[in-house]
């Protein structure tokens, strides 16, 4: 027992930078005069994320260079290992994209928004790197509390408040269930660390209290992952949230909770093969149910964000296909799919944000004929939804292919069948969106372009009315959104065509059990 040393603090650089960014955003907002604050808080937040990412990338470089890369810090409470670093990079990318997309938000006061976003990101990385149940719990609360508030950010909007309240109530309920599960595990293991749980699970006699604790913790994680039947909060929360927040939630929460759940499963699933398969059966059942509920639920949705929420439910199920045997190489495949999903989800929600910023609400019927009004945006929508549908040459296709390969190796027979069926059903969902966007619409009444005289030919459609003083900011916001869409599209295609660049890196870097 010793006080944490300086080496522990050095390993924390990526996360310290993130926390510092969050605090500085508030400080900057208090110092800079209110009229000029907006660009400065955005710059501070972006700088915090970028600095954190730079540290994380450097650590990853070190990890790649040396086989004896030290992971755990703080006596194993936080595992700053390769898996954490990879996930941190993913979450930071999601956070950065979300910051860029949020520039579309016309709200004057963005410092609170950005601070909460960064703290939520920190919570996500903490959950994914947790080596101790206390860290899992506090990390989960850090990310959840931030997201509850962010979902309600447009508080003038009644649906935003409602979605946040439902998310909060159910999230607290699920947190209580998770806590009680942790308490039961602690009752039999006598220590809060996951290592102690692993020692107990391998020690032979696991009893009913341990089973019950495992079950409750599983439910707690499944709730955060929005796996059926613990999913009903997700469509409401995603629909209520501003699109950039929904993108961040979809990717960040899913990735963090997924990694944490995998770590937990590695620790708590007993070594005995019979018991192990009995422990994994409910996981498989949840995954299969998520795939079907996600794809069926999306069938008749008319709100794009809600549709994407159901799609996220299905994708959470897909992630578990290669992990059924708990073999470490399945994790590389799943992480690859998470990266693919990152590009698809950020792209799709980014397109929603861009459309909302151009006065096109996220209602599917209002998107009819989008290609006439915003051809590039329509093309982006088509690409991202093709990716979600799993069409080549996007990473959605490659990722699904790898998942199927991993599932075959893991022997996840009927789960694969469920995945195929779910993919088939959801293909219709995504193609419906694409065909709506590309169907010639009746001339939209709300678009000024419709009233423009024909003489000018096909000029770019006029922007929705903005205040004059906002013009400069609006231009920057457009640049930010455009950059997000472009990067996501490029990532989606590059990852689809050259998967090995990332896949080899992931399989080489990721920790083995």
């Amino acid at each position, binding site marked *: 027992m010793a006080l944490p040393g300086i080496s522990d603090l050095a390993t924390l650089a990526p996360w310290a930078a993130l926390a510092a960014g969050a605090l500085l955003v508030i400080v900057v907002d208090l110092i800079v005069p209110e009229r000029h604050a907006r660009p400065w808080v955005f710059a501070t937040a972006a700088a915090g994320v970028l600095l954190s990412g730079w540290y994380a990338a450097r650590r990853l470089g070190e990890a790649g260079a040396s086989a004896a890369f030290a992971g755990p810090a703080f006596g194993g409470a936080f595992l700053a290992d390769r898996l954490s670093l990879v996930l941190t990079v993913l979450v930071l990318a999601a956070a950065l994209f979300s910051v860029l997309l949020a520039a579309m938000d016309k709200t004057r006061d963005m410092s609170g928004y950005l601070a*909460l976003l960064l703290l939520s990101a920190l919570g996500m990385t903490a959950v994914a790197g947790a080596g101790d149940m206390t860290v899992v719990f506090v990390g989960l609360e850090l990310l959840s509390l931030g997201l509850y508030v962010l979902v309600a950010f447009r508080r003038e909007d009644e649906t935003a408040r409602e979605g946040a309240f439902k998310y909060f109530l159910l999230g607290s309920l699920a947190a209580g269930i998770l806590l009680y599960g942790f308490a039961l595990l602690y009752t039999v293991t006598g220590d809060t660390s996951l290592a102690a749980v692993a020692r107990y699970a391998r020690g032979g006699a696991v009893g*009913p209290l341990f089973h019950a604790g495992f079950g409750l913790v599983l439910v707690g994680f499944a709730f955060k992952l929005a796996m059926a039947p613990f999913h009903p909060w997700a469509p409401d929360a995603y629909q209520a949230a501003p699109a950039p927040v929904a993108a961040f939630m979809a990717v960040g929460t899913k990735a963090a909770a997924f990694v944490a759940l995998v770590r937990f499963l590695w620790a708590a699933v007993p070594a005995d093969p019979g018991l192990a398969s009995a422990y994994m059966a409910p996981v498989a059942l949840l995954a299969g149910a998520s795939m079907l509920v996600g794809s069926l639920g999306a069938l008749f949705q008319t709100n794009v964000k809600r549709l994407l929420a159901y799609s996220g439910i299905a994708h959470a199920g897909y992630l578990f296909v290669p992990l059924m045997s708990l073999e470490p190489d399945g994790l590389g495949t799943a992480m690859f799919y998470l990266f693919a999903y990152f590009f698809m989800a950020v792209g799709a929600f980014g397109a929603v944000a861009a459309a909302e910023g151009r006065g096109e609400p996220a209602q599917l019927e209002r998107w009819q004929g989008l290609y006439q009004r915003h051809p590039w945006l329509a093309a982006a929508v088509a690409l991202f939804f093709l990716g979600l549908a799993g069409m080549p040459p996007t990473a959605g296709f490659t990722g699904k292919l790898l998942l199927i390969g991993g599932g075959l190796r893991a022997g996840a027979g009927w789960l694969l069948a469920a995945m195929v069926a779910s993919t088939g059903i959801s293909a219709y969902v995504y193609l419906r969106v694409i065909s709506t966007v590309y169907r010639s619409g009746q001339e939209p009444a709300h678009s000024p372009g419709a009233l423009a005289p024909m003489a000018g030919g096909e000029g770019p459609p006029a922007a929705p009315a903005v205040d004059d003083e906002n013009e400069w900011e609006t231009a920057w916001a457009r640049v930010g959104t455009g950059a997000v869409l472009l990067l996501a599209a490029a990532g989606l295609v590059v990852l689809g065509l050259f998967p090995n660049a990332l896949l080899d890196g992931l399989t080489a870097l990721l920790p083995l059990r």
Partner: protein
Amino acid sequence: MSWVVAAATVMTLAGAAGVLRARIPVHAVLALVLNLVGLAALFIALDAEFMGLIQVIVYAGAVMVLFLFVISLLSARNTPLERRPSLLAGQEPLGVAVGALLVAALAGAIFGQPLPEPASIYPGFGTVKAFGAALFYEHVFVLQLAALLLFLAAVGVVVLLGRRGPGR
């Protein structure tokens, strides 16, 4: 079983029942305070001095006052909700039935595993000093996270209610 523990157990259970049954919001808060104080007494009986103090000061003191503020802010009137017809049919019996099943399952788990007699504790167990050592030696990382969480909560409440003027 000492009479203190018995009384504290009855307090927690009665408080819980009160939260479930009270028609008037203020009564529910008082029931919850009863429950929390009972818990604090149990903590002290379990040699957790520091936790007992924290429970009374933070929870029964600060948080419950917050609840009372909100009740007065919402001007929740004295006509209980439960007198009005519910939009949701059959929720109560279903909820109670599921709850009964859950208690049975948990009880099965508890009695399905023989628990050894309590270990003898070392002197100073549960005191502020022992607690501080555990917190700052072993769990300092999570302490930092918790500090950030409190900061987040402050920012969050301001975002929800403050600065930008009233919510509507």
